[in-house]
């Protein structure tokens, strides 16, 4: 039999103005098992909390009901207060008479009646509460970063600098990500490689960082502080320890057909390749789909020319298993496919390109060695049309409903760079809005217009029509002039929408991290916890969470690192004690609960059961309290009622139901 104390908060006038708190106290005192009831203006205050402690001492209370604001606000506060007063924190229940009562009802009688019922439900529940002990779990002091772009690199460096080990898993042969493909960066126009490469080198040479390139996360199990991750290290066919990165193999490789991914497929590469000159590690991989030796058994030229004997055609994929305390997702983005945007003739004309392709064309290491030229005939374009919002801000199924955020700025950058380097080339930008919120951003855009003479037209393009003479006829509209425009162009650049890397869905599933309708990872709270995923121990860095530019990405990467450091700095974590528990006397061992458990927290054991003196060996469910997150899916699936949830037991919830319907 519990001895329960009921504490009713006025919350100043927030509650007391609508709920007759004295009446609630009066009614509480009449409830069975209630040995103490009082009200106080601010229960959450220091003074309010000490009243609880005093009552516990004086009346020997075993359970506490606080009628106050939402448990989401102060449940933790009152649990701590109870603990200080010497009772188990899980003997506290909150009746939410503010958000769910006083704030939404006007009539005092009605609100008071409801508050009394909510109080009764909480009292009924506390009668059945049992002390729960939060368990502890060890924290593995190592972090995993998935994705080796600027977001992943920055997060890894920050964590490593704090003294913790970090592994980066990168799918492609080198770290560097999208940023390594860019030519210049806005709004400062500094060279992307010049600021990124030192970071790549720093990561690679950091004693606390291990980089797994050409690798993918295969499987994730465990929970915050204790993740176990299988990493597939794909066969590189090149011995990392022996290779000196001399590049002879690439010069000699006779297979030259595969499209160069790094150059967005604008040219080809060899079958053995490093994606770009500053690649880290500077060790090539063999693309098994194109390698003549691996496909036919004949060739072997690279092996012949490799002076250090680093080529190894017998390599196989390897799975390594590592333990981590925290995981950071930094999987970045790609541009959307343009197959559904036939009106822009992207698939029909080589001279209609995406902005990311233009980055490669402008880049000195790109397919045209940095010369701005048409891919169809190599001629210098004299008229270039940029089209904004291609696939962004679309509510139909062709594109994405969101603003890709970076396009306005990089288009201004491209326009400016072209006008600077090729003053006789005209640049026209069709835009819907120019969005430039950011430090020095609008100034940058204005510079493109005012100093560089870039022609901005407010309006969209309806159709791009390749002409018989090889030019492109652009049919658009100038909304401010209210005129339709037919413009002959030599090149059309599409500000193509960005979308999260398609792999993120697979990774999110493995991590049980949630994802929104656009495949962006969801943050735990959009404002207050923007770099944490709702899954404990999983953090977000970069565009996988939402469109952002480089400075924002780096800032978020640092923020994610801080959260990881905060976690790894702890030796042990408290676990949620409101977990499922199976009564082995009742368990049939039918496995239905395990089928619905999202965490793999339920296993089965053959156990010797002493059923009121009768001994038998039975197959019974056992819940791993460290894995269980307390959703309760198993409890409803269990036909015999053996599985119950601590803190939300069948009897507790039924007692609440009964109290409300009484």
């Amino acid at each position, binding site marked *: 039999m519990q001895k329960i104390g009921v504490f009713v908060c006025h919350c100043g006038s927030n509650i007391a103005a609508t709920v007759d708190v004295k009446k609630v106290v009066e009614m509480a005192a009449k409830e069975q098992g209630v040995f103490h009831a009082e009200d106080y203006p601010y229960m959450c205050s220091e003074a309010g909390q000490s009243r609880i402690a005093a009552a516990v001492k004086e009346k020997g209370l075993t359970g506490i009901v606080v009628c106050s604001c939402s448990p989401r606000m102060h449940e933790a506060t009152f649990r701590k207060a109870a603990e200080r007063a010497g009772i188990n924190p899980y003997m506290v229940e909150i009746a939410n008479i503010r958000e769910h009562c006083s704030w939404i009802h006007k009539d005092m009688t009605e609100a008071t009646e409801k508050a009394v019922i909510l109080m009764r439900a909480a009292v009924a529940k506390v009668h059945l509460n049992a002390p729960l002990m939060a368990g502890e779990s060890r924290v593995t002091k190592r972090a995993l970063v998935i994705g080796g772009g600027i977001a992943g690199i920055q997060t890894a460096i920050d964590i490593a600098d704090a003294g913790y080990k970090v592994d980066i898993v990168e799918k492609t042969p080198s770290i560097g990500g999208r940023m390594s493909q860019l030519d210049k960066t806005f709004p400062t126009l500094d060279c992307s490689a010049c600021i990124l490469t030192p970071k790549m080198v720093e990561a690679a040479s950091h004693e606390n960082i291990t980089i797994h390139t050409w690798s993918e996360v295969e499987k994730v199990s465990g929970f915050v502080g204790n993740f176990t991750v299988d990493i597939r290290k794909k066969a590189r066919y090149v011995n990392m320890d022996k290779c000196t990165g001399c590049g002879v193999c690439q010069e000699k490789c006779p297979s030259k057909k595969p499209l160069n991914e790094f150059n967005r497929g604008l040219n080809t590469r060899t079958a053995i390749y490093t994606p770009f000159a500053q690649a880290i590690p500077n060790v090539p991989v063999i693309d098994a789909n194109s390698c003549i030796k691996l496909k036919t058994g004949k060739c072997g030229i690279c092996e012949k020319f490799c002076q250090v004997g680093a080529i190894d055609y017998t390599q196989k994929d390897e799975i390594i298993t590592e333990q981590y305390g925290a995981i950071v997702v930094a999987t970045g983005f790609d541009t959307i496919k343009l197959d559904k945007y036939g009106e822009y003739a992207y698939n029909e004309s080589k001279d209609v390109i995406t902005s990311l392709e233009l980055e490669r064309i402008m880049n000195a290491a790109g397919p045209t060695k940095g010369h701005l030229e048409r891919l169809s005939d190599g001629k210098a374009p004299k008229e270039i049309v940029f089209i904004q919002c291609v696939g962004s801000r679309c509510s139909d199924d062709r594109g994405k409903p969101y603003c890709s955020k970076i396009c306005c700025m990089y288009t201004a950058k491209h326009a400016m760079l072209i006008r600077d380097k090729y003053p006789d080339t005209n640049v026209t930008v069709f835009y819907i809005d120019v969005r430039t919120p950011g430090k020095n951003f609008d100034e940058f855009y204005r510079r493109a217009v005012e100093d560089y003479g870039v022609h901005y037209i407010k309006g969209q393009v309806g159709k791009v029509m390749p002409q018989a003479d090889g030019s492109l006829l652009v049919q658009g509209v100038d909304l401010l002039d209210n005129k339709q425009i037919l413009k002959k162009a030599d090149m059309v650049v599409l500000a193509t929408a960005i979308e999260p890397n398609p792999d993120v869905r697979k990774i999110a599933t493995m991590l*049980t991290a949630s994802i929104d309708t656009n495949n962006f990872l969801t943050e735990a709270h959009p404002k207050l916890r923007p770099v944490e995923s709702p899954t404990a121990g999983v953090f977000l860095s970069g565009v996988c969470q939402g469109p952002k530019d480089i400075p924002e990405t780096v800032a978020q990467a640092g923020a994610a690192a801080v959260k990881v450091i905060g976690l790894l700095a702890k030796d042990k974590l408290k676990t949620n004690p409101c977990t499922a528990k199976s009564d082995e006397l009742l368990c049939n061992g039918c496995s239905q609960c395990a089928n619905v458990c999202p965490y793999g927290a339920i296993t089965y054991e053959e156990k010797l059961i002493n059923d009121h003196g009768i001994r038998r060996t039975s197959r019974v469910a056992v819940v791993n309290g460290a894995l269980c997150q*307390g959703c309760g*899916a198993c409890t*409803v699936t269990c036909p015999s009622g053996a599985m119950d949830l601590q803190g939300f037991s069948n009897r507790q*919830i039924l007692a609440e*139901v009964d109290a409300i319907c009484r």
Partner: protein
Amino acid sequence: MPVNNENWKPTIVAFCCNWCSYAGADLAGSSRLAYPADVKIIKVPCSCRVNPMFILRAFEKGADGVILCGCHPGDCHYSTGNYYARRRMTLLFSMLDYLGIEEGRTRVEWVSAAEGVKFSETMNSFVEKVRTLGPSVRLGDLRCKN
């Protein structure tokens, strides 16, 4: 048995998952979006914690309507809980309909933590519906032919 008694107050139990719908109800509160006091909320960790027995018990003890609110499908804090809840409730409601229990006394609504307005509107419309149906009698009388 619809009653025209203006003063009749239905008893309504709302099960709300901790992560989305309970927070949505909090938001309705902090936004001062009124709904009838007939609604009493029971917090559960996830919509999948709601055993059909809880719902039947509520009716048996005198509830006139029971509503279950959870995270939108795809947004479950526990990834998949609401999908199981959805199947269970679909079958339970279909069974109640089969038994001739008035539809409209049970409902499932997905309400996110950001949908205070939806929470309030849902409760308003649900209470309105239950009011038109009057006190719940049938489930209690299922085994008591006079």
